[in-house]
């Protein structure tokens, strides 16, 4: 393969552009059949963005309905379907694949100096399995009414019509995609690291993807079998979960949360990884307590399996198990706290640049701390009795999922955007959007804490008059938030036409995707497999690495390489 490709002729002279993964094969087939992890990552990114958009619009409809008491724009049945679909799509089609499958796929193999993931074809298969899951989910939605909430609690769900069967199959299939991605990543991280890249030198994003993958592999099969059993309950009435047949609905909740609690760590761990990378880069400082931050991800991954019962304190499970689950729930706060405090410590005496990705990282620190601390409040047995199934819980999980994961994903997206597309986005627009999102988010969801602890139940189409004022503020906030998100998305998309060309290492980062690949990277990532001789955040070596003032430490340039690309 040649290193350059003729992209056009100008007055007889052929102008060459460096080959990169985007321009080396532009055919549709080149995308649909690709096994290149970078292209697969982008395909995921596009798909989950659509899911996010649709689910986000549903959320806006939900908020609009709640703007005033009684009927505002839709009837109760529609409302119930809307919040269910919002939850289901956000969780299964957006947030779980978002960071690992989209950004992780793109970045992780490069960060470990590999040419690709261990099983590239499996990677593509995972993508298509995910798409099939998505299509089934959409079919279920079109076929009829799904208003179970995202939790599918029996016996309500097992007595509903056929659409539930589609949705359970969709969740089952999307789960498989998640398992295969996790499996692929674990093997990749174990077996494909570049020479010299020891476990102590792994970027923290890789560590967090690793921990996430463990959870994906261990937890997801259980949602699979849960969905199979639910399917059977509906189809054959096997009486495992339906009390009318002697089954136990609380057992279903155990099955569901055995997956879905660890799943919240599938959502947040990759976000932790992004935040570590962002704070390191934009503070230009070694991440404090690297080992603690790295290992706490793994600790969280394992502890995450021991606490699922905290969703069931008032379900009628035994008091003994509530107590055990509550105790273990607190323990999760500790490794998480270690992370948060180390991130703050990293900023200490750093050289902090408040560019867009860093603004998202700082928002994350604030919002996630609120979300996490309120999570601990929910873990307090008797307090949860009052707060369970109120808007306090809704606010808690939006603070961790939207304020945590989605904000981190946006930060990561802005950070790696130049690498993925070769274009810089507009910085001013990016910063304004980040601030708007932060404000809109807090207006939307902080009010929900207040109304929740005052007794506003969740999944309510209509509410008592005393809550109207909170709902109004929350709805207004959600529109601010939406404007911010559309601005951010617009800024990124506009960069395709208006963006400046990105250099290899615009942020002066030290991880391999910045120092050893061009923007966008070569189809095989590296011209030469890199040999790693230092840690990912060794900014004290910066003078040496960055060279003369103004240098960015990249050992490859966007100019065509003189070496022929080796296969």
């Amino acid at each position: 393969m040649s290193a350059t490709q003729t992209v056009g002729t100008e007055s007889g002279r052929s102008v060459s552009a460096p080959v990169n993964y985007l321009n080396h094969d532009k055919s549709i087939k080149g995308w649909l059949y690709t096994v290149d992890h970078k292209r697969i990552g982008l395909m995921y990114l596009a798909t989950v963005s659509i899911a996010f958009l649709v689910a986000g619009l549903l959320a806006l409809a939900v908020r609009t309905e709640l703007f005033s008491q009684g009927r505002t724009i839709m009837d109760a049945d529609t409302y119930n379907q809307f919040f269910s679909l919002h939850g289901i799509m956000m969780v299964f089609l957006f947030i779980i694949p978002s960071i690992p499958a989209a950004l992780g796929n793109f970045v992780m193999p490069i960060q470990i100096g590999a040419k690709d993931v261990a099983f590239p074809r499996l990677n593509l298969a995972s993508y298509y399995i995910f798409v099939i899951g998505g299509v089934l989910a959409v079919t279920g939605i079109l076929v009829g009414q799904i208003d179970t909430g995202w939790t599918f609690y029996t016996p309500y769900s097992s007595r509903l019509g056929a659409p539930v069967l589609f949705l359970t199959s969709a969740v089952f299939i999307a789960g498989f995609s998640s398992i295969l991605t996790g499996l692929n990543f674990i093997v990749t991280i174990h077996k494909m690291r570049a020479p010299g890249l020891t476990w102590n030198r792994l970027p923290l994003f890789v560590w967090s993807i690793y921990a996430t993958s463990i959870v994906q592999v261990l937890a997801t099969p259980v949602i699979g079998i849960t969905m199979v059993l639910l399917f059977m309950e509906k189809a054959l009435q096997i009486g495992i979960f339906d009390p009318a047949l002697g089954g136990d609905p609380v057992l279903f909740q155990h099955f569901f949360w055995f997956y879905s609690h660890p799943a919240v760590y599938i959502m947040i761990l990759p976000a932790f990884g992004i935040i570590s990378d962002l704070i390191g880069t934009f503070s230009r400082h070694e991440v404090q307590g690297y080992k603690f931050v790295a290992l706490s991800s793994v600790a969280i991954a394992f502890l995450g399996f021991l606490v699922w019962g905290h969703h069931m304190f008032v379900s009628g499970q035994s008091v003994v198990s509530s107590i055990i689950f509550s105790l273990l729930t607190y323990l999760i706060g500790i490794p998480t706290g270690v992370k948060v405090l180390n991130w703050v410590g990293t900023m200490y005496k750093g050289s902090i640049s408040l560019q867009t990705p860093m603004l998202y990282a700082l928002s994350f620190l604030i919002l996630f701390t609120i979300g996490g601390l309120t999570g601990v409040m929910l873990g307090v047995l008797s307090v949860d009795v009052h707060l369970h199934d109120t808007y306090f819980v809704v606010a808690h999980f939006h603070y961790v999922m939207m304020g945590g994961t989605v904000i981190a994903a946006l930060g990561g997206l802005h950070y790696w955007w130049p690498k993925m597309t070769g274009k810089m986005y507009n910085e001013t627009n990016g910063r304004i959007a980040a601030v708007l999102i932060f404000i809109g988010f807090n207006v939307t969801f902080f009010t929900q804490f207040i109304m929740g602890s005052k007794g506003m139940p969740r999944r309510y189409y209509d509410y008592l008059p005393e809550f109207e004022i909170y709902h109004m503020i929350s709805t207004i906030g959600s529109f601010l938030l939406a404007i911010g998100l559309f601005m951010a998305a617009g800024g990124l998309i506009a960069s395709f036409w208006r963006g400046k060309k990105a250099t290899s290492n615009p942020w002066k980062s030290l991880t391999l995707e910045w120092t050893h690949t061009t923007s966008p990277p070569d189809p095989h990532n590296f011209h030469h497999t890199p040999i790693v001789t230092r840690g990912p955040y060794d900014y004290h070596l910066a003078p040496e690495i960055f060279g003369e003032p103004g240098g960015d430490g990249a050992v490859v340039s966007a100019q065509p390489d003189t070496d022929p690309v080796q296969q």
Partner: protein
Amino acid sequence: MGDKGTFWLPESGSTLSPGLDSLFYFTYWISVVIFVAVTVAVIVFAIKYRRRNDSDIPPIVHENKLLETAWIVVPTILVLIVFTWGFRSFLKLHSPPANAYEIQVTAKQWLWDYTYPNGKTSTGDLVVPVDRPVRLVMTSTDVLHSFFVPAFRVKQDVVPNRYSSVWFEATGQGEYHILCTEYCGTQHSGMLGSVIVQSAEDFDAWLQSGVEDMAPAEYGALLYTQQNCNVCHSVDGTRLVGPTLLGLFGRQTTFTDGTTAVADENYIMESIVNPMAKIVEGYPPGMPTIYSSFDSDQLNALVAFIKEQQ
């Protein structure tokens, strides 16, 4: 019912509330302190150490073992305190006093039915004596529901085919909301009720009282709200789950099988007692069959009430 609570919590109406509130505020203030510390540090560092020059290279900060240990140990101690407290009050929540007054509760889509020890029943509104522990023994006839009284800080899921219970001791006379907090279908948000706390004498009198002395239409109006007809049927013409009762009497109604009928007394009674017999066109066959046990007094009262809605 004005807003008599604190900024965070609703008014407190049971003996359990104060203890739980102090635990809530204890964890809340710890969280505030931690949160403020983190936020202030973030903001101060972001300003103080902002990048002044593109080639700034900050100094190495060596890991502080003491700090690293401190933020493992201190939170651990804090959470253990909170755990012990929470766990003890949880046990209290689940230990009804032996002399508690027991009321049976049946939850169904989408209403609450109560049966008092003397056989008296009520729907929607739960009447209890003040300053006396009350224990509710609950079950559901269809799907999961959850019994929640914010002012009492109690909540318990209601499960079909199993009894679950909550207890509380109301400390002040008045009316408090009952909400259903487990998603149970279309009218989940309409599955409301009130706890009416009365003095011991009023409660006894209420318990013994009959309803025979009311005018039929008046009694019908009571049933209309008590039996939650209002959840599905409006009297002002709005379309809810079922057809409006406004102008129903004498109206020509078309059914899903194409036949029609003019609504007279018999038709209305049949609609209530045997709702599946004729399904009104354009509506789901969604009317519960639980009203078949109405006696003739109740039916006459409802018919009288519906006749008035013209």
